[in-house]
């Protein structure tokens, strides 16, 4: 019962003004992100099981569709598909964040975060950041698969860095989107239902597996409003040697960053509803 601890010390941390607010904010974001990353480190099996899906798409879907002429502007379909599948794996890994949030709420873990003084936006950004790390580890696996399949992957450092940035932002975007859905539906069962209903259109109403030019007008319009389209466009430009952009990389980044910022702002407002 003896203690080597100093006597009552309320003062130091009760005045966060002495901590530079920005440094404090970053610490809180990092607290959340690091916790997620440590979980991945303790049990990396999730990363491997998640690698199966892109493998199946590339090996089965890709091989069959490659026989269909005219789908990829005369280029190799597998080359066209690989960045789309990379974007898909980012999307699917990120969509899991909503259900994880509901899970954390059910376990009571979320209550602990919510009673802390961390700004709600810091909690959201922490999750978004860890989603970026998950997405990047997915990317490593998809790159490996792509190389094995003889896809002409670019390893120029600038391209790799650009891809990493797209993956990080895309992961943050879709995980935050998923979090918002969780705050609306609130239960696991409802999320499971709606999660499927949302992921499929996001994936198929995009340029991930076929060019937008092949779509009817109304679907074209939807795809142009779909952030995944800009994620794929960016990845298609940077992942392959000689990749070209349809919208311009700057525009792709701008769209994704703007949408992410908007979603984070919304999620920060809605997150407390999960524990309410």
């Amino acid at each position: 019962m003896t203690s080597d601890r100093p006597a009552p010390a309320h003062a130091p941390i009760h005045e966060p003004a002495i901590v530079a607010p920005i440094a404090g904010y970053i610490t809180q974001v990092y607290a959340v992100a690091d916790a997620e990353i440590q979980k991945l480190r303790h049990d990396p099996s999730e990363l491997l099981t998640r690698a199966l899906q892109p493998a199946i798409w590339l090996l089965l879907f890709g091989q069959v569709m490659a026989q269909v002429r005219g789908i990829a502007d005369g280029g190799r379909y597998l080359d066209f598909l690989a960045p789309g599948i990379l974007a898909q794996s980012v999307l699917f890994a990120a969509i899991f964040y909503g259900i994880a949030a509901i899970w954390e709420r059910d376990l009571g873990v979320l209550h602990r975060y919510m009673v802390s003084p961390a700004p709600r936006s810091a909690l959201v950004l922490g999750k978004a950041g860890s989603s970026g790390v998950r997405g990047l580890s997915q990317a490593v696996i998809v790159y490996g698969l792509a190389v094995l399949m003889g896809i002409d992957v670019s390893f120029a450092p600038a391209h790799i860095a650009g891809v990493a940035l797209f993956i990080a932002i895309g992961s943050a975007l879709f995980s935050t989107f998923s979090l918002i859905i969780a705050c609306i539906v609130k239960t696991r069962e409802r999320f499971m239902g709606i999660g499927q209903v949302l992921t499929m259109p996001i994936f198929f109403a995009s340029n991930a597996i076929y060019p937008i030019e092949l779509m009817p007008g109304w679907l074209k319009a939807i795809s142009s409003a779909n952030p995944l389209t800009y994620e794929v466009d960016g990845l298609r430009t940077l992942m392959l040697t000689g990749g070209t952009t349809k919208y311009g990389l700057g525009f792709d980044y701008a769209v994704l960053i703007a949408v992410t910022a908007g979603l984070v702002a919304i999620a920060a407002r809605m997150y407390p509803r999960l524990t309410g």
Partner: protein
Amino acid sequence: MAVSDTCREPKGPGIIETRALTRQFGEILAVDGVSLEVQPHEIFGLIGPNGAGKSTLIKMLTTLLPPSSGAARVAGYDVERQPAKVRTHIGYVPQLLSADGALTAYENLLVSARLYLVPRSEREARIASALKLMGLEDAASRLVDGFSGGMIRRLEIAQSMIHEPEILFMDEPTVGLDPVARHAVWGHVRRLRERLGTTILITTHLMDEADELCDRIGVLHAGRLEEVGSPAELKGRMGPDATLEDVFAHVTGTEITSGGSYRDVRQTRASARAHS
């Protein structure tokens, strides 16, 4: 009743003050016009049957749940208008187990230390001393999933005090613990108050726990705060040999009139229990 009587006389502004605090869920009045004042350094117990509104009251005081009407000040700050301020001054042990099972004990504490902006230079020392105080040094690097219920509770108490809060809210902290572990928690609670002057608001279904540990007790029934006083006062109001069980039954058993002897009351309580 080892606890000193010095904290009993109401004086000065309460460190927790509620005024007609009310929370409705649809038709249900979970908390109904509760006005309460808890003094600094007090150990205040909330008792009441299932669904009485104990957890709902605590959730409002910890800023997890907005009140429907009424007001509450915690550590001098309004829970609705200054929730971030309130959060820096409080710790919370939720009714649900809230430690993250996928992390180690150390990592759980690290998350809390970072979220509460414990200065980096103090983090390790605080974590080490919290682990030591709760007897978890040897389990620090083990995943919490493998912990017993008692160990998890101890970890949560360690987490909730890592930032040395002025006020600690504990929602049934000893539920599911064996008698030894329960007494250990009582010891920790008392020591916290002695060493740091922490004010503690605790809920329990165990009358002996309330009797032993608390300076004052509030009895909630159907959302209303029916009785407040020291264990001795509450019992004294009932009769010379009354127990806290009798008080509880008197307040919550609807069929009991003030004329009934405490023996009758005890009988009624036994049957009321059988029905619940």
